[in-house]
């Protein structure tokens, strides 16, 4: 707010006062900061945090604390019964391991493929590079949801139903990672590669000893965005698995929902939701800078 502004920010201060410069701690200025700055900020944060807090609190509540007419905000104690029931009703441990395998293998392969393809597109001579780049750009825009049925028929046909590789395989090709890393590799100064070339380093060494190390933040961005989407992926694992042994966490949570869908089961379902949500929430809390940058990619350059 400019102090030169002829429009007083708080006209209600009274007419008898001479028009004065607003001081940092004047009452009008403080009121404005609180109403204009903190209130909307706190409101927005609460709208997001409260439902998640409710999930946490409810996951410790016994059926008697949930099926009741008077609301109890806090659970009676840190009772882990719901977690125990959730993990014995359905094989949650198995789901967790499956999700870990799918996310780790899927993300690792995707990131490696993205690095290799992006390097080839930027640093290796090839006659049809532009055509290939357009092929990747178009693939980036093809919505995965419309490919579900043909991919199901393909994967089920080669025996991939109810297998972990059947969950992982169709998602391995990566247009997003390739695109993002290619854009980054284009900005690298040519001089660092020339030095390596003069030293006699081949493409493989140039890639892993020069390009990859200086591009770590971009690679981390691609890796984290991939981890988040692999962990949360739902429609594909839902379709390709119908046996608990190969289900991932989100699909397993649907199974739990089917068996605990009555009022008394809410505490158990919230415990299940915690097991799906909290790992990603922790990753996000630790590395949110990369994740936000990767997911909002294109907004600034677009």
């Amino acid at each position, binding site marked *: 707010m400019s102090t030169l502004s002829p429009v007083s920010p708080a006209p209600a201060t009274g007419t008898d006062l001479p028009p004065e410069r607003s001081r940092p701690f004047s009452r009008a200025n403080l009121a404005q900061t609180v109403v204009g700055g903190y209130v909307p900020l706190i409101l927005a944060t609460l709208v*997001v945090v409260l439902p998640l807090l409710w999930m946490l609190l409810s996951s410790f509540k016994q059926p008697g604390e949930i099926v009741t007419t008077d609301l109890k905000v806090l659970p009676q104690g840190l009772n882990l019964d719901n977690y125990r029931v959730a993990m014995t009703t359905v094989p949650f441990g198995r789901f967790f391991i499956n999700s870990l395998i799918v996310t780790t293998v899927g993300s690792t392969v995707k990131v490696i*493929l993205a690095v290799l393809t992006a390097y080839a597109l930027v640093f290796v001579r090839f006659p049809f590079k532009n055509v290939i780049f357009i092929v990747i750009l178009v693939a980036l825009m093809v919505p995965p949801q419309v490919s579900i049925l*043909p991919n199901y028929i393909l994967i089920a046909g080669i025996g991939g139903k109810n297998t972990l590789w059947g969950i992982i395989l169709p998602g391995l090709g990566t247009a997003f990672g390739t695109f993002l890393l290619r854009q980054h590799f284009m900005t690298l100064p040519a001089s660092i590669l020339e030095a390596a070339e003069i030293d006699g380093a081949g493409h493989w060494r140039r890639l892993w000893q020069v390009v990859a190390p200086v591009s770590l933040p971009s690679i981390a961005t691609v890796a984290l965005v991939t981890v988040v989407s692999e962990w949360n992926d739902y429609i594909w694992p839902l379709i390709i698995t119908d046996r608990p042994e190969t289900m991932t966490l989100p699909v397993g949570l*649907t199974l739990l929902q089917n068996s605990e869908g009555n009022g008394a089961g809410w505490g158990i379902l919230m415990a299940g939701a915690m097991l799906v949500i909290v790992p990603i929430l922790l990753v996000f809390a630790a590395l949110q800078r990369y994740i936000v940058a990767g997911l909002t990619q294109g907004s600034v350059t677009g």
Partner: protein
Amino acid sequence: MTKQLTDRRAATAVTVTPGRRRGRWSARTRRDFIVFLALALPNLALIAVFTYLPLINNIYYSTLDWTLGSASATVVGFDNYINFFTSADAPNVLGTTATFTIVTVGGSMVLGLLVALALNSKVRGTTFARSAVFAPYVLSGVGVGLVWLFIFDPGYGVLSWLLRGLGQQSPQWINDPQLSLVMVIIVYIWKNLGYCAVVYLSGLQSLPKDVMEAASLDGANGFRRFVSMSVPLLSPTTFFLLITTMLSSLQAFDLIRIMTPLGNGTSTLIYEAYLQAFGAYNRAGYSASISVVLFAILLVITVLQVRFVERKVHYS
């Protein structure tokens, strides 16, 4: 960045020239050819098989009268499309898709802009608030859907308790098809508005400071500056968000599946395609035709985006 780009182009041109003189298929060219394919082919093959091939197969399946899992199918041409558009469900599905898309896109963009304005204020705690607001966007739709289903529960949900406190009965969110749609829309906006807020925030922070200061010196107050300067200057951001949120709204699946498994009142094109193939009927051909319709809509939106970006490039 642009300078580095031109630098590297120039450098490439210099290193390329001696290679060219040795002839088109010199040993070095051939080696580069092989290196390129070795590095890029696995990824490109996967993209071809699991992204491009399904598009063609979908179109082919959509011409079949085919039950999923059955060994035989008959070619029926456009019958699946005709059946879909003349079915009693078509107006519902198309209407639900339109309502869901328009309200979620409009809602998350307007609320996102308001939250972005709050995040843009010069007070402490904006960094934390920014992360908190963005968090739902990265969380599992299944987990989030369950949490909100509990909140909306007419018997034991927080919302029903709050409404009882006001002397109201909780609406039947689950059984009433129209209220189901309202419920899913609210949760979808909750999950996605952080994305719009963060994108709008970066738009707001890249507004030219001198222009905004000049306007404020000219006596424009905060609201005036926002309406006649920020909003028009943010129009590229708005367009970008319009396209990206429209594309993701049209593909929304997780929340609908968890909160309303039967699709009662919430069956959008993508959900109808899922129900027809993987629900009770196993109508693969019919489902494929709905997917093709959805893909055509998504394609039109994407082409619009590409054309707009091209025009913007020409202006600058």
